[in-house]
């Protein structure tokens, strides 16, 4: 937001690009969960674009992004976040868009020293090199800390009016919001990618290990954002929804997964992912019973529905006791 505003101050026409990787935090969880129902449902990128008076193009990069997540040349950060590869990928895609739409240069909101993996003095040139953007990439907020770029050398941008921000503090950025009377903005360092989330990364790792391949589809990574993921053994995993919002969302997957819910007590919908056999289904049913209103009952009826079949199977089970479910089962 600030980087755009900084170049707009110089009379430069800007259009925004927002890449959808499938791992974006905002929007999805708000759309699914009950507890997020009162949160603003705005898409922050769209909202920011509207505040700035610029067009925003949202680009689906789900397929191409898989290679970034699965084979990051520069490795991962603290979890499964391939930040440096991701940055190079996004700048490359932005450069492709720039050429196609005949724009002159690219700007990003990066700040030297703000992020340990992708925004250091040593690593920022890697993004320039690997994206193929050359000297058409300007980081307005910290431009004075970096070598002059082509737009500065050509006089399209006045370098003296660009920023010299560095480090993790947001003090100077907050001063700029005051200068430009920007009263509302996304939380600084709020994290917008599920790959930086420890719990999410554990679930994605589990998905890869259980399948024996580091592949995924959009539905896979969407479901990692939903419910409690419980894996009693390598044979199967159970996704137990946590509220009505998740139940409704998971219903959309009943044509792909075996699903379970209680017919005798209120309780969650659960999706079964793995090897379907009677032993696994009984254990899954006992887990589902444990998360419903019948958790203290002596017996709970669980309906089991199989994809693309009208008939259901009913099991009467004893809910799994707290001491029967090791903490390690919960991903």
């Amino acid at each position, binding site marked *: 937001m600030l980087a755009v505003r900084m170049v707009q101050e110089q009379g430069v026409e800007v259009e925004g690009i927002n890449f959808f990787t499938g791992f974006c935090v905002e929007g999805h969880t708000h759309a699914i969960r009950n507890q997020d129902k009162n949160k603003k449902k705005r898409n922050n990128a769209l909202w920011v674009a509207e505040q700035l008076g610029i067009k925003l193009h*949202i680009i689906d990069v789900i397929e191409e992004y898989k290679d970034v997540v699965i084979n990051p040349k520069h490795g991962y950060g603290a979890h499964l976040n391939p930040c440096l590869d991701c940055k190079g990928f996004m700048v490359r895609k932005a450069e492709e868009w720039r050429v196609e739409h005949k724009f002159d240069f690219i700007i990003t909101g990066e700040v030297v020293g703000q992020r340990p993996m992708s925004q250091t003095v040593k690593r920022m040139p890697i993004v320039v090199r690997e994206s193929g953007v050359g000297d058409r990439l300007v980081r307005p907020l910290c431009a004075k800390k970096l070598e002059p770029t082509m737009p500065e050398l050509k006089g399209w941008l006045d370098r003296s009016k660009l920023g010299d921000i560095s480090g993790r503090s947001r003090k100077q950025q907050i001063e700029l919001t005051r200068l430009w009377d920007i009263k509302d903005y996304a939380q600084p360092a709020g994290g917008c990618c599920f790959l930086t989330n420890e719990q999410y990364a554990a679930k994605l790792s589990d998905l890869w290990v259980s399948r024996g391949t580091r592949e995924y589809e959009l539905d896979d990574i969407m479901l990692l954002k939903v419910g409690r993921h419980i894996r009693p053994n390598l044979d199967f995993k159970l996704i137990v929804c946590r509220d009505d919002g998740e139940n409704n969302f998971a219903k959309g997957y009943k044509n792909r997964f075996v699903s379970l819910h209680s017919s005798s007590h209120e309780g969650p919908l659960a999706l079964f992912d793995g090897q379907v056999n009677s032993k696994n289904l009984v254990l899954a049913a006992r887990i589902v019973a444990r998360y419903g209103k019948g958790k203290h009952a002596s017996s709970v009826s669980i309906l089991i529905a199989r994809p693309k079949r009208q008939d259901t199977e009913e099991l009467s089970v004893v809910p799994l006791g707290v001491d029967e479910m090791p903490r390690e089962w919960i991903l």
Partner: protein
Amino acid sequence: MAHHNYNLTGTICPIPVIRTQDRIAELLDGDTLEVLCSDPGALHDIPAWCRIHGHSITSAVQEPDGLIRISVLVQKE
């Protein structure tokens, strides 16, 4: 000028916006598009996208069944 319908139920943010954006790119000035969505976020996001790209929203409502119905008049420069 033609009227088009687009069912985006079952998709969640930002996919309804992306699909609407891509569909509008194929339409002509003066065409109308009616989008049906299940994600409540679409009620804000699709009109926001249309506003910044200069298209007109002729109606945007959440129906009693919770579905979102948005009508767009495509306006190209």
